[in-house]
């Protein structure tokens, strides 16, 4: 609804600015006025015009207005008494008539139609049913308005309009402009205006002489209209907001007075706390707290903080009407007027029980998982240590067995052969069968020597200790090529020198493992081995030209890619790490390169050194 003057239903009739509303055409005009004298002017012209024309007039006005009107009409030479005698002029007291159309404080349609309709009918009869409009002035609406019953006033206006369907009359209503002095009147005023075919502004507007003054006045009216419109819109927003708050289900939103008594309640509050609005209004909000909290003065203390800080937030147990507990998130906000006076508190409560329980469960799960992770980490660590220990033990054991085989059994066999050779030369060719047996023994001894050598060298290459990688690798490659048929090339950086025993052995084991893989899996006919020192690191590369490791296999192995190369390489990777180095794997469509890197000077950390010594 708008009260802008362009509204087609409410015409602010400029043509009436200097004239009185006329009874000649039917309609329902409202006259706003400030001064009684002005109203009487308008009224006397309206009624006087009708009576002078021989038309009927009906006046339902306040006593003072009636008296003044009579006086004014008689001054103008109109014989109201005669007209009244003829039944053409009906003059009723609004104060007396109003109760007659009311039942139980409400306007009654039937009574209105009976009484007012009756008056109109009688007036018409008085002029012999001529088709002349009756001039009607009514002031019951103004009385109702003044009594603070704007809705009833509007009802009367509506009934007048209904009556216009069966009676021909020109109705003039009047309201003192002072009656529209509060914001609460805005809406009823607009509704009231709606009931009229014309609104005549008060004399303050009509009295304006010049066009600029009127324009200014209109501008002011428009401004006021805009202000009113804004306030109305704001009120509508407030109303909608109130409805929204009331409808919210998930939050308990309610107000407390400064002493902590509940002064408003929404659906969410009822749902969460279990109280109906009528049973909680006026009660102190400490009933939402557990007994021990109340004993400790928690509710009051919260209000003190909220009043002091402006806001208080808390999470904790609260109690429902049925005594059950719930985990609540509570925000209390102090409400103050413009002067800073405490009006009360707004309290928003949410039920976080589920969330709290979920969080608890989550925390428990996280803790459990962390524990499991720690355990896993620990067992992984000890597993790693164990595997390192196993590797070292294995190395030592191999070395011991290799050396034992070579140093004792090998020597015995060598000497045995030496002796057998002597026996053979002593016997010569004389003793046929004996010589044959000795020859057989010599061959068997030679085979045994070879066997022992092979086993012992694979266990532990004695050359490695004697001469280092630079010599041990080509020596090993000779044997490897002979056994596998794979051509192995070896490049070593000049002056490669010696590395710590552990590093040499570890690199040698990588070489052995890698070449075993080349032989078993790659299908390569060649292998290229490079040994060099780069930036203080000894680098051993074993490259083949085989089919490579499939990306899937590499991916499956994940970070622990050495898995792709089997347990042996994984052990080697561990060994490299322990020595402060690493094992890298590059696999392309054609060929795989294993790259073992260890510090050329041995592991620097004392921990590793200790490990090496142990």
């Amino acid at each position: 609804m708008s009260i802008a003057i362009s509204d087609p239903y409410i015409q602010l009739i400029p043509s009436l600015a200097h004239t009185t509303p006329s009874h000649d055409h039917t309609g329902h005009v409202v006259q706003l006025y400030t001064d009684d004298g002005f109203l009487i002017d308008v009224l006397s012209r309206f009624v006087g015009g009708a009576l002078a024309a021989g038309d009927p007039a009906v006046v339902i006005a306040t006593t003072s207005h009636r008296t003044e009107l009579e006086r004014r009409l008689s001054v103008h030479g109109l014989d109201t008494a005669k007209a009244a005698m003829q039944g053409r002029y009906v003059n009723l007291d609004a104060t007396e008539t109003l109760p007659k159309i009311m039942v139980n404080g409400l306007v009654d349609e039937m009574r209105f139609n009976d009484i007012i309709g009756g008056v109109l009918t009688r007036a018409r009869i008085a002029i012999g049913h001529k088709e002349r409009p009756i001039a009607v002035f009514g002031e019951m609406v103004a009385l109702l308005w003044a009594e603070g019953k704007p809705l009833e006033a509007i009802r009367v206006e509506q009934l007048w309009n209904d009556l216009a369907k069966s009676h021909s009359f020109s109705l003039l209503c009047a309201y003192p402009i002072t009656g529209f002095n509060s914001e609460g009147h805005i809406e009823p005023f607009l509704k009231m205006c709606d009931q009229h075919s014309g609104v005549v502004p008060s004399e303050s507007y009509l009295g304006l002489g010049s066009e600029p003054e009127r324009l200014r006045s209109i501008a002011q009216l428009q401004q006021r209209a805009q202000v009113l419109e804004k306030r109305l819109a704001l009120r509508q927003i407030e109303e909608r907001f109130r409805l929204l708050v009331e409808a919210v289900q998930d939050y308990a939103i309610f107000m407390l007075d400064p002493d902590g008594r509940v002064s408003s309640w929404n659906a969410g509050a009822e749902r969460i706390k279990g109280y109906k609005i009528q049973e909680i209004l006026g009660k102190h909000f400490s009933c939402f707290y557990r007994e021990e909290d109340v004993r400790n003065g928690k509710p009051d203390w919260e209000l003190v903080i909220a009043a002091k800080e402006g806001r208080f937030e808390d999470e904790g147990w609260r109690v429902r009407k049925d005594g059950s507990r719930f985990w609540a998130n509570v925000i209390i906000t102090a409400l103050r007027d413009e002067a800073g006076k405490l009006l009360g508190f707004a309290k928003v409560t949410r039920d976080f029980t589920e969330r709290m329980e979920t969080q608890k469960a989550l925390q428990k799960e996280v803790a459990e998982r962390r524990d499991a992770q720690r355990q896993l980490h620990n067992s992984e660590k000890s597993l790693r240590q164990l595997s390192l220990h196993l590797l070292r033990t294995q190395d030592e054991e191999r070395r011991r067995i290799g050396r034992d085989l070579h140093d004792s059994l090998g020597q015995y066999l060598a000497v045995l052969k030496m002796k057998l050779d002597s026996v053979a030369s002593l016997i010569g060719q004389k003793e046929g069968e004996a010589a044959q047996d000795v020859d057989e023994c010599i061959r068997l001894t030679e085979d045994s020597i070879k066997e022992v050598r092979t086993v012992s060298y694979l266990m532990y290459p004695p050359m490695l200790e004697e001469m280092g990688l630079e010599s041990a690798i080509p020596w090993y490659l000779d044997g490897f090529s002979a056994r596998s048929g794979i051509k192995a090339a070896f490049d070593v950086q000049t002056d490669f020198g010696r590395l710590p025993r552990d590093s040499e052995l570890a690199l040698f084991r990588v070489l052995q493992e890698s070449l075993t893989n080349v032989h078993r899996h790659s299908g390569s006919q060649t292998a290229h081995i490079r040994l060099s020192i780069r930036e203080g690191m000894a680098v051993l590369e074993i490259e083949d030209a085989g089919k490579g490791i499939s990306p899937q296999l590499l991916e499956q192995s994940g970070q622990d890619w050495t898995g792709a190369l089997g347990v042996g390489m994984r052990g080697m990777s561990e060994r490299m790490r322990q020595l402060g180095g690493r094992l890298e794997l590059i696999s392309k469509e054609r060929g795989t390169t294993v790259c073992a890197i260890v510090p050329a000077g041995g592991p620097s950390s004392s921990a590793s050194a200790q490990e090496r010594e142990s």
Partner: protein
Amino acid sequence: MAARILIVDDHEIVREGIRTLIDRSRSEWEICGEATNGEEAIEVTKTLKPDIIVLDITMPRMSGLEAARRIAKLGLGCRILMFTMHDSDRLTIEARQAQAQGLVLKSQAARDLIRAIERLLAGGTFFASEAAPAFR
């Protein structure tokens, strides 16, 4: 031709074998001393100044190769014959680099040892494994 020979090996049985072999083959040769590791070999060499040193490679404390290198540096004119279980071309190269004049495999002692010592006494070299196949 008389010769003074030092035998160096950490295994008694091997030393004994060599002794027997030499005694039976060349009684004029004298086994002037024995040692059981590289360090000992150097010390004994300094004292005995043998003509020939039959030197094992794999020994505790100091290997035969290292001992050969050091003995050569002494400049005593001793001829060094490496005597080893290891059958490898690589080792022949190593032995040459260590200033040894010969290398005999223990498994071929009966066949090669006496010949090798004779070759060395005559001022020559003897590297039997040059022709021998690589370790299988």
